[in-house]
């Protein structure tokens, strides 16, 4: 039994490193296609972290929606929007790079100190469990309105995306 805990811990480290490596790749690479690949790797790592947080359902949803849908959409955007010689994003100047790095590290150090200083007390009593059944009941009764609004937002996004991407096609045809 102890061995399983060590394996789970090792997997946690693996997913954490996967997330950071993917993020590093997405931020540092100059080819946009590599950046999308890094994003997919990092999202996969976050899915593993969800698994460790006790929610296999969310991990599967993360892989399905983010890695499966959002990344593919971004890849399509990269391929439709760029001619091959414009695939590289420009390099920042040394001064701007320094400014960006210092701003980010300041933000991180602030957050780190805030996280370490705060005492988070766990809830006195817990209702329900982490099961999919309980999530479904909550979605259908307590969060019904938000659930319906999400579907309206998705519908609006689909219609808006079609209208935006369609506009100007007639001009090109002429």
């Amino acid at each position: 039994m102890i061995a399983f805990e060590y394996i789970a811990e090792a997997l946690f480290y693996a997913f954490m490193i996967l997330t950071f490596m993917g993020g590093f790749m997405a931020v540092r690479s100059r080819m946009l296609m590599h950046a999308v690949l890094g994003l997919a790797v990092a999202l996969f790592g976050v899915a593993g972290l969800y698994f460790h947080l006790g929610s296999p359902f969310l991990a599967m949803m993360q892989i399905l929606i983010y890695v499966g849908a959002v990344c593919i959409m971004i890849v399509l955007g990269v391929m439709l929007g760029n001619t091959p010689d414009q695939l590289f994003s420009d390099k920042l100047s040394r001064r701007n790079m320094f400014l960006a790095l210092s701003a980010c590290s300041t933000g991180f150090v602030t957050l780190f100190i805030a996280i370490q200083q705060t005492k988070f007390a766990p809830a006195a009593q817990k209702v329900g469990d982490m099961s999919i059944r309980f999530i479904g009941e909550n979605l259908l009764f307590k969060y019904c309105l938000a659930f319906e609004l999400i579907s309206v937002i998705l519908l609006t996004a689909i219609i808006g995306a079609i209208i935006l991407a369609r506009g100007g096609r007639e001009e090109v045809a002429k």
Partner: protein
Amino acid sequence: MIISDNLNTYLIIAAILLVIGLYGMMRHRSLIGMLISSEFILNGAALNFMAFNRFVAPNPAVGQIYTLFIMGIAAAEAAIVVSIIIAVYRKYRSEDPEQVQDLKL
């Protein structure tokens, strides 16, 4: 040392994801790169929700539902942004945000 069962670990990972997203937002000089970075920021927020859901929240379904909503909104946002980028590219033949300064398409 077991760190996978500790709230602070997840919060710090989420903070690192946020910082990665911020840095990418400043570093990438194309609209697609900025979209990729915004996905990192959204994922940091979602990981925070999941961590608090696991360790602190009284109702363990709420955080998962919020994370699902974040995923849905992120998908909608990515669809809209990609179509905007296609429209911008058709008009300007460029994805450099410096060149796309007037909003009129």
